[in-house]
């Protein structure tokens, strides 16, 4: 490829898109922490943060400022580079997922057709899996590098939890892929938009399995064993302070948003607004409506995550493993079998 034939405009377009997506994700994450506190407050019948700004709206900014201003402490006995790498890796891995999510239909600007997806790779969903599996390294490395027994135990818990639940998640996904016949997220969403029902109708069991596994992957209650504050003293981020701690906490919320986006795209039609014909409005407006729809779906999922977190207790380690290996995986296999049988019967 010569320099002349290289599409510089595409590079710039993608760069801008990446920056916008990352910044928006971070902003949304910032307010997800606020949302979490408010949801918790509502469920616990108390006001929640309401001092900084109107309705406490600047609270996340104050939290962020506090975390940045805090003193950095790296334990003397810690493995310094890994200690710094841990939170960075956790954050990077969780942000990278956003690359394959189709945010909406194409946008038409300056005579160009701009796809609102950073990369429509044909292995789409496998890429998500690869990245999500990476995110556990952040926890493992951080937990190990802290040179703290509680952190180490938490890292071990996180690793085994991630492995166990990724299998069930993958199996649930295989059943979905059998019905869609493609790995590309863009095609999966487009199929749901064009006439079909949402995939959740074909894969209800698969969705439930996927949702539970997503909860486990995000380390949310009832699967928040790695950071079980009661026995492990907040686990892997016990020795962290300042923004490195902030990165870990942030990564959890980014993960939550990303898995909500993935779930919305794969099972709930992505940017598809039901009972609405996109061809009746201008393409750009349709794209905007699409983004809004996807965001609303994400918010609903995130709320569901929070609702569950503030309602039920957490599993014990052995119960978690039992659930993963003896319930989720057989169920996912059964779901696969069922899907296969139904596809065969239709033929």
């Amino acid at each position, binding site marked *: 490829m010569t320099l002349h034939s290289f599409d510089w405009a595409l590079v710039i377009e993608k760069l801008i898109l990446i920056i916008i997506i990352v910044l928006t994700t971070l902003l949304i994450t910032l307010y997800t922490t606020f949302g979490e506190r408010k949801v918790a407050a509502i*469920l616990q019948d108390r006001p929640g943060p309401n001092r900084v700004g109107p309705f406490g709206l600047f609270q996340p900014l104050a939290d962020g400022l506090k975390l940045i201003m805090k003193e950095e402490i790296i334990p003397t006995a810690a493995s310094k580079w890994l200690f710094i790498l841990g939170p960075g890796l956790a954050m990077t891995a969780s942000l990278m997922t956003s690359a394959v999510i189709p945010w909406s239909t194409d946008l038409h600007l300056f005579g160009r057709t701009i796809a609102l997806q950073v990369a429509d790779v044909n292995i789409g969903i496998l890429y998500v899996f690869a990245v999500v599996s990476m995110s556990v390294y952040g926890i493992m490395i951080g937990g190990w590098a802290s040179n703290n027994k509680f952190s180490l135990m938490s890292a071990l818990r996180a690793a085994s939890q991630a492995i166990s639940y990724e299998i069930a998640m993958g199996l649930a996904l295989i059943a979905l892929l059998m019905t869609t016949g493609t790995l590309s997220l863009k095609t999966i969403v487009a199929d749901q938009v064009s006439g079909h029902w949402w995939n959740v109708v074909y894969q209800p069991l698969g969705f439930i399995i996927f949702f539970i596994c997503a909860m486990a992957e995000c380390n949310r209650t009832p699967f928040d064993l790695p950071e079980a504050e009661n026995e492990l003293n907040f686990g892997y981020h016990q020795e962290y302070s300042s923004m490195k701690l902030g990165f870990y906490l942030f990564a959890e919320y980014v993960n939550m948003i990303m898995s909500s986006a993935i779930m919305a795209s794969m099972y709930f039609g992505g940017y598809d607004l039901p009972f609405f014909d996109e061809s009746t409005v201008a393409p750009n407006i349709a794209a905007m409506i699409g983004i809004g729809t996807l965001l609303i779906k994400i918010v609903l999922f995130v709320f569901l995550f929070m609702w569950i977190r503030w*309602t039920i207790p957490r599993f014990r*380690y052995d119960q978690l493993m039992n659930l993963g290996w003896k319930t989720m995986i057989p169920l996912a296999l059964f779901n696969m079998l069922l899907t296969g049988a139904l596809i065969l019967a239709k033929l």
Partner: protein
Amino acid sequence: MEQHSHIALPKGSIEKTTTTLNIGPTHPATHGVFQNIMEVDGERVVSTEQTVGYIHRAFEKLAERRPLYQITPITDRLNYCSSPINNMGWHITCERFLKVELPKRVDYLRVIIMELARISDHLICNSIVGVDTGAYTGFLYVMQYRELIYEIYEEVCGSRLTTNIGRIGGFERNFTNTAFTKLEKFLNEYPKVLREFENLFARNRIFMERTQGTGGISAQRAMNYGFTGPNLRAAGVDYDVRVQQPYSSYQDFDFKVPVGTTGDNYDRFLVRNAEMYESISIIKQAYQKVQSFKGAEAEVYHADVPAYYLPKKEDVYTKMEALIWHFKIIMGEIDLPKGQIYSAVEGGNGELGFYLVSDGGRTPFRLHFRRPCFIYYQAFEELIKGGMLSDAVVTMSSLNLIAGELDA
């Protein structure tokens, strides 16, 4: 060349396959300051060594230099989740020792306060069990109803946590109408919330799996250890000091003593929950009885014990006799009769006993607190051995180990 010196490791520490884990003294699972040196094999607890004494304040020794009325604030700091019971227990001990007969109304008022304290104690314990299994909401949700209880204390005695409530011979002042209004408000609002709280946990599958079959103890072992209170009743023994050796006219009340079967964390949770309902019923009965006093009887709030009950301030300023008593009481110039007594009340946590020995001086010769927590903590290793680390934490909160009572 200078040798870089390492911390000397104890012999055999490299070869060993288990990990030593310090749960406490500063660990969120130890609600207070005490320590478990746990030996864990992965997540499984191999053994544990319980350490006490981190907040030992030498209460029993302090009590040897104090006249009776000055010992009440010390008892506040035993089980601070239900300090009114401790106060009352101490007053009742003194009254039994001094052979003071109390008017019925005072008894009933005390019952109200003690049962409120029992509710607040059980409420904290049960919601903390929830927190330690990972469900935070129950804890914060019920906090505001404990607040209602604290407001009643505040109205009666002026303070909230370490109450120093009542005096030897009764209360320092009569209950105001506001106190009764607040009590009514609590009685109206609380049962609904308790039902909600119960629904959140009692039939929650995750909670049941976390608590059933963990931290269990047989009735025989529990009695051998000297368990009392909810922890013994959860094992199936219906021992309750309120029934076996009634004090403060508990014989006038109609209530059930709930018992469990397995003595595990789940049964302890259920027993405490059931006891809260019983406490509500007792408070209602006591309130009715208190309301039935009319005229001059309704103004009675203390017995006539001039040597221990402070005279009214107006009298102190105007009457010689009252001034003398006031001075003698405050300075602790009153000699106790010779003798000894053991008297116990059903504390929030179990049998809270006071063993008082007097050689005829102005202060006790020896005072021993029978603190139920201290007894439960001995059994801790037996309860958690072989279980998971998370179970140990839940068991710790389910036994309601409160550092103040543990160490005294």
